[in-house]
């Protein structure tokens, strides 16, 4: 496509140029005299990159006013045009930075959404007149920049601005470019209000999308039937519903998981979506590619981790080290995988570092044309302004970036930036060309006493900043080159010893050089006093300029001088110099320093190619090199097999697994072909353990505590497949875990049952067979908030009852509507009540945090009223007091084995609880609710034997079959039975023994943990760590940023229930301390 475009473009270029007449571009009246300079420019002799991958050499670009009028070779230059010689220069389309954000002031007046985080009506264009940091952006060749509103969850719309210095009207390229969303809570805001967790943010987004759709339907219905109630006006819903229909959404993705979640949300609501990436996309490349979404990609590659001391090095994670090494490859990897990307200044402390960072990405594998596309045509196209910016083509806005070479080469400098036909010379210095005067010049001064005396003018320094001396030229000194400055300085001392006069009052201007010195200091026969030297450089069309010099002696006499360069390499006797641009030398040196490889590694082509870390699943230590796959057939032989089923405990038994399922259990099973045989003599085999209450593996905040009822939030939106606790718990024999919302509110969020398939995707962790659930909570935690209902157990009972009633009525309303009774406005989708309707319908199970017997009784009574059977009572520490009532309802209990006394409502908690409930026929499980205890569930189960004498076979079921029953997944897991999932743990001894350790953990017939494999991972990680620490130590860029790193998105959220005081009893939490 690009190719045909190029041909068309050439065609246009070769036509005789048609000049547009000058137009009025503003309605504003002119005060005073009109000014009408000819605003035509001809850039000649340039290499013009008209679009990525398309360069015309010896080309001319014509610009008239704000627009490009012609591009091509041998164009006729219209009269009056200013010619700009671009010999040796390259002209690129002006770059586009598709990201920046500003605070947008809230307009209080129009009626908006009930939640202040949803402000689609907010417009960046209303709060910005000029792009901040414009000069710096132009120094990077950036001529247009997106400006987005900051804050909120539906943040509002961005606009595209030119980076010139014109009025807002002229600078505004596009208003309402994209609608901006984020899946988390804005930083720095209050954590008291809803939503205060990422889960809540996503739920709010969903609800507001439904509300926007409803708003439109409601108004349509009202317009059609004005007799109906008139819906409230709402500018937010109006704006959102328009954006859904025609707009493009940009969703922040502050880590790789957020990118995938953003895509999920976009799919759910069929949103045209672009993702704002984090630079970590390479970690889950396949999934990111599969989203098929364009990505804004930052180039704020990480600084060298602090490994200066052994202690500091120990605290640096392999994730940090590997990211430091691999992050610069992110843009290249994305592009090679076919992702459409824009490179942006997002995250850069200094936007002046943009090109430098882009070049790092290019060096690390990003194709140059793709890099250019990522800052020109791609953003232009995504913003829908591809006919205005992004290429050099007649009719486009005259945004040009002029460089002295390849934009992606290390030392290339942006010389000029043209924004809508306005010229900006980079670095703020006037575009002055100085004659290159540095070096030695011979001339003769005439004076009666000496007749002709040869003198030597020695100039050092770079152009514009020259200095030096005049000395006797009778004994010609060795010539000094400008480059040999250091030596020269030493020589200066020698010169001082010989008769010489230092130059003073040196002034160099574009066309003249003047300096003063004292002839008497050189030779006592020469006149005393200050002589004034003037050298005038005569510029011509030729490459070289001619010098015309004169000396005004102290007596007032002026002599013309013939200046002859006396440098060795100067063959010409003529006093000529070539012109150079000011500061070129300095700048190129500066930029070569600045573009040093961020790792500080010296790029030496003779060296063998550097090794880089492999991407792991998940990223960092203990990650698998590839997804753990393969459905092997495995036979475990001669083990003591605890089936947790009717078969009981089998000695010397075999277990055959095939296709991820248990194929056979018995003795002397013949191994089928291609079967891996594992000798498990002396070992014990149990079903994979199941934790019915956990908060690990989620980075969505655990609690959405902003409201008393949050049934709309979902843990499942925020599964963190990189959580190291998954691996650690696998090593404790855990295979399935119920990730629950916390206990902050009477009706909390929806839980997610996961299998601990380490290395899998977020979605791959979810146990698809598990039915949906929801967390309820009673007692101290939920009544604690004095500023909202409820404050007592009385209120807790009422709010649950009221919500269930509301859900019932909600369903009735919808039933009515769906039956065609449209005599009202259409009903609104209410995600909160929808979840509760599912509870009512038996498709969503309640897992209710509960302690005291009174609240247990009250809740069961309410549920009985609605005919709802409870999924589980969680904690249920006084379950032993009402086990008969539980049994009557059919309530199962998932308890701690022996926690108590961490708060008042658990002062009657006893370790016999499990046994007492079990003895009354209640299905009992022991859970962890703790990342450490989840690694010891087998011995937690043994406490049922210790306290109350539950037989060992039944006790083991407390952490296998019983939690499976409670989660309604016992059809698939929880016992070793033919046809169930091959979730298997091999133990070194009796599974209930404290002296036993887990040796292998299998899920779906795949080995996810074993002692040997763990050792291999550790030795692999040690090697990688050692290499990376060395690399970091050798890195030239060792210093960390002065400003502390912003805490990363996933580390903003705890991984336990802060409302559970059991954890509050710790003065500190070791792992939390490390999470900066």
């Amino acid at each position, binding site marked *: 496509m690009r190719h045909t475009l190029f041909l068309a473009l050439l065609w246009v270029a070769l036509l005789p140029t048609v000049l547009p007449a000058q137009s009025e571009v503003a309605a504003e009246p002119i005060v005073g005299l009109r000014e009408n300079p000819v605003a035509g420019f001809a850039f000649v002799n340039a290499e013009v990159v008209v679009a990525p991958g398309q360069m015309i050499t010896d080309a001319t670009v014509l610009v008239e006013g704000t627009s490009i009028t012609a591009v091509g070779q041998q164009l006729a230059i219209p009269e009056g045009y200013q010619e700009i010689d671009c010999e040796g220069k390259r002209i690129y389309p002006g770059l586009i930075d598709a990201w920046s954000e500003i605070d947008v002031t809230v307009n209080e007046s129009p009626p908006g959404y009930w939640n202040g985080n949803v402000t689609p009506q907010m417009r960046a264009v209303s709060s910005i007149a000029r792009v901040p940091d414009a000069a710096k952006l132009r120094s990077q060749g950036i001529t247009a920049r997106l400006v987005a509103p900051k804050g909120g969850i539906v943040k509002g719309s961005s606009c595209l601005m030119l980076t010139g210095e014109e009025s807002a009207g002229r600078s505004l390229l596009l208003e309402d470019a994209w609608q901006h969303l984020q899946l988390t809570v804005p930083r720095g805001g209050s954590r008291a209000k809803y939503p205060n967790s990422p889960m809540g943010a996503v739920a709010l987004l969903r609800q507001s999308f439904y509300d926007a759709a409803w708003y439109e339907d409601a108004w349509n219905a009202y317009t059609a039937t004005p007799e109906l109630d008139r819906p409230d006006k709402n500018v937010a819903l109006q704006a959102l519903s328009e954006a859904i229909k025609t707009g493009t959404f940009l969703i922040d993705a502050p880590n790789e998981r957020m990118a995938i979640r953003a895509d999920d949300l976009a799919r759910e609501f069929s949103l045209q979506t672009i993702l704002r990436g984090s630079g970590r996309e390479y970690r889950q490349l396949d999934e990111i590619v599969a989203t098929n979404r364009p990505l804004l990609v930052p180039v704020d590659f990480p600084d060298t981790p*602090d490994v*200066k001391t052994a*202690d500091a090095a120990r*605290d640096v*994670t*392999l994730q940090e080290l590997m990211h430091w090494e691999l992050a610069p490859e992110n843009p290249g990897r994305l592009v090679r995988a076919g992702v459409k990307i824009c490179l942006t200044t997002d995250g850069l402390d200094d936007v002046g570092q943009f090109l430098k960072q882009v070049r790092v990405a290019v060096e690390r594998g990003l194709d140059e044309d793709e890099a250019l596309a990522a800052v020109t045509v791609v953003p232009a196209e995504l913003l829908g302004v591809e006919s205005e910016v992004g290429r050099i083509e007649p009719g486009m806005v005259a945004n040009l970036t002029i460089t002295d070479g390849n934009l992606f080469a290390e030392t290339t400098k942006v010389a000029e930036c043209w924004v809508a036909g306005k010229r900006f010379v980079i670095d703020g210095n006037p575009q002055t060309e100085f004659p290159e005067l540095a070096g030695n010049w011979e001339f003769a001064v005439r004076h009666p006493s000496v007749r002709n005396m040869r003198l030597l003018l020695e100039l050092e320094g770079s152009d514009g900043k020259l200095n030096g001396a005049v000395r006797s030229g009778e004994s010609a000194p060795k010539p000094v080159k400008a480059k040999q400055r250091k030596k020269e300085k030493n020589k200066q001392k020698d010169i001082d010893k010989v008769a010489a006069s230092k130059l003073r009052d040196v002034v160099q201007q574009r066309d003249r050089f003047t300096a003063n010195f004292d002839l008497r200091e050189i030779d006592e026969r020469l006149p005393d006093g200050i002589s004034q030297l003037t050298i005038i450089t005569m510029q011509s069309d030729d490459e070289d300029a001619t010098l015309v010099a004169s000396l005004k002696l102290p007596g007032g006499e002026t002599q013309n001088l013939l200046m002859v360069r006396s440098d060795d390499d100067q063959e010409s006797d003529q006093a000529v110099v070539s012109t150079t641009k000011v500061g070129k030398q300095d700048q190129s040196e500066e930029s070569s320093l600045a573009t040093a490889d961020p790792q500080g590694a010296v790029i030496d082509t003779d060296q063998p190619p550097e090794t880089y870390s492999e991407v792991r699943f998940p990223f*960092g230590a*203990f990650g698998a090199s590839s997804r753990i796959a393969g459905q092997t057939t495995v036979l475990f032989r001669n083990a003591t097999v605890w089936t947790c089923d009717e078969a009981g405990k089998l000695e010397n038994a075999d277990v055959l697994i095939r296709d991820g399922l248990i194929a056979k259990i018995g003795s002397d099973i013949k191994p089928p072909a291609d079967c891996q045989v594992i000798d498990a003599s002396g070992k014990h085999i149990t079903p994979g353990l199941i934790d019915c209450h956990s908060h690990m593996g989620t980075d969505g905040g655990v609690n959405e505590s902003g409201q008393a009822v949050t049934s709309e939030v979902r843990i499942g939106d925020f599964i963190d497949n990189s959580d190291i*606790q998954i691996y*650690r718990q696998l*090593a404790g024999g855990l295979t399935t875990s119920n990730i629950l919302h916390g206990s902050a509110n009477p009706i909390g969020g929806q839980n997610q049952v996961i299998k601990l398939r380490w290395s899998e995707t977020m979605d791959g962790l979810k146990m698809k067979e598990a039915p949906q659930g929801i967390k309820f909570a009673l007692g*101290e935690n939920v009544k604690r908030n004095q500023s909202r209902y409820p404050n007592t157990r009385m209120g807790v009972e009422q709010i649950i009852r009221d919500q269930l009633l509301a859900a019932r009525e909600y369903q009735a309303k919808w039933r009515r509507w769906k039956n065609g009774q449209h005599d009202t406005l259409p009903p609104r989708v209410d995600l909160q009540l929808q979840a509760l309707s599912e509870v009512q319908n038996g498709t969503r199970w309640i897992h209710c945090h509960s302690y005291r017997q009174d609240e247990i009784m009250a809740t069961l009574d309410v549920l009985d009223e609605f005919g709802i059977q409870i999924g589980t009572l969680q904690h249920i520490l006084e379950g032993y*007091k009402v*086990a*008969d009532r539980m049994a009557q309802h059919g309530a199962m209990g998932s308890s701690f084995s*022996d*926690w108590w*006394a*961490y*708060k*008042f409502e658990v*002062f009657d908690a*006893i*370790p*016999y609880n499990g046994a*007492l409930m079990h*003895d009354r026929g209640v299905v009992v499980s022991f859970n962890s609710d*703790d*990342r*450490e*205890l989840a690694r*010891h569930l087998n*011995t937690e189960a*043994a*406490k049922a034997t*210790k*306290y109350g004498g539950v037989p060992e076979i039944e006790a083991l079921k407390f952490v296998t079959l019983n939690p499976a029953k409670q989660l309604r997944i016992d059809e698939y897991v929880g016992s070793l039975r033919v046809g169930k999932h091959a979730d298997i743990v091999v133990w*070194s001894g009796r599974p*209930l023994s*404290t*002296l*036993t350790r887990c040796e292998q953990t299998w899920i779906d017939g795949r080995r996810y943990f074993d002692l040997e494999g*763990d050792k291999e991972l*550790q030795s692999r*990680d040690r090697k990688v*760590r050692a290499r990376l620490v060395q690399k970091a130590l050798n890195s030239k860029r060792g210093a*960390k940023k002065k400003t*502390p790193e912003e805490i990363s998105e996933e580390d903003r959220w705890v991984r336990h229930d802060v409302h559970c*005081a*059991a*954890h*509050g*009893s*710790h003065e500190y*939490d*070791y*792992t939390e*301390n*490390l999470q*900066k």
Partner: protein
Amino acid sequence: MRGCTHIETFFFTKSRLLAVACMLVLMLADGYAHDQVPGAPQSRPIVIRNATIHVIDGPNVEQGDVLFERGKIKAIGQALEAPKKAIEIDATGKHLYPGLIEAMTDLGLREISAVEETVDRTEYGDRNPNARSWVAVNPDSELIPVARAGGVLTVMTAPRGRFVRGQTAVINLDGWTVREMKLKAPAGLYIDWGAMHPGGSASQDQRKRREQKLAELDDLLDSVRRYQQAREARPEVTPTDVRLESMVPMVEGDLPVFVEADRQTEIESAVAYGQAQGLSIVIYGGYDAEHCAALLKRYDVPVIIASTYRLPLRRDESYDTAYTLPERLRAAGVKFAIGGEGAGSPGGAANARNLPYHAAVAVAYGLPHAEGLRAVTLSAAEILGVADRVGSISVGKDASLILADGDILETETNVIAAFIQGRAVDLGSRHKTLYEKYKLKYSRSEKQTR
């Protein structure tokens, strides 16, 4: 059945001991929650017969007997001759251990963690060398009988807080008042070295913070020394200072300083500081101790490992780092005990009864079984400075013993009798009481339904 059900089921198999059993029952508790009665002083010699005796400071004595009298162990052996009027207890198939020692806890100082009014563990400010844990120990705490029923007979109770936390005490878990419970008070001074390591900041900040905190400590110790000199030289004109006064024994090296430190730099800094100041240092925490084992060994600094149910401190560390720490320290020749509250042992003082399982995890991950036992008995006693009294079954030591129906490191094992200084102690607890109460509820309702 009140109070005695928990001992009915075990060891009195021989009819000739029935009378003894009844007597013991009377000696033991006769009540419900907060009604456990302290044991009466030992009035008659007791012989425990035919048990597997884990003496700790030597090889086990199989089918052995232990005789104790007036609170002290008199003899260990096989087929011991019993003195007249001795109570004989047949413990065939049972295991006898010294009482377990929890080397670092706030047991007695807190009742319900979340109810501030019931918690007395952290004094105001960050310089509390004079705060004395034992004066605030509540002998009627419901948590104490629960710990005791798990076999924990002796604990070191320590205050918490920032930096200089206060003085610790070793107490036995039985007595009408703390006076009878005290075994050693003060047992040492407790300082949080971790306060010098602000988490996650740059190494330079950490150095600065550490220097600042060390300087504060220097000042404090210097003040103590000068105070001591001045008080000795001119007591009448030197006003008293309870903070400084309290630190004199530590400065003189008579009592250890317990230093909470997990990271290598903290541990090294504490050891070096102790050496420079002539303090006798004990490390509590010790997560990174293996990395400075040579130093710890050379200066004979012991470590109280802060529990084994503990997550790795750093993401990249092996999943079992905390589980293998005891074995790694043993292999490196560092003296250690296991105790205290870790991140993964919710409840802390409330679940001090789980102490043997912390040792068991270490055994599962490599520590020899006998060393696991030692880590929660004799090693703890040695480190706390009470090895002359408790920690092993040795002649002359206190008869602080537990009798268990199995390997004490195994979860299913229950303690069936315990003696502190020869006193048979009540193994009842709030938990057992409530258990009995609700068993009663259900047995009644069963009768009704029949």
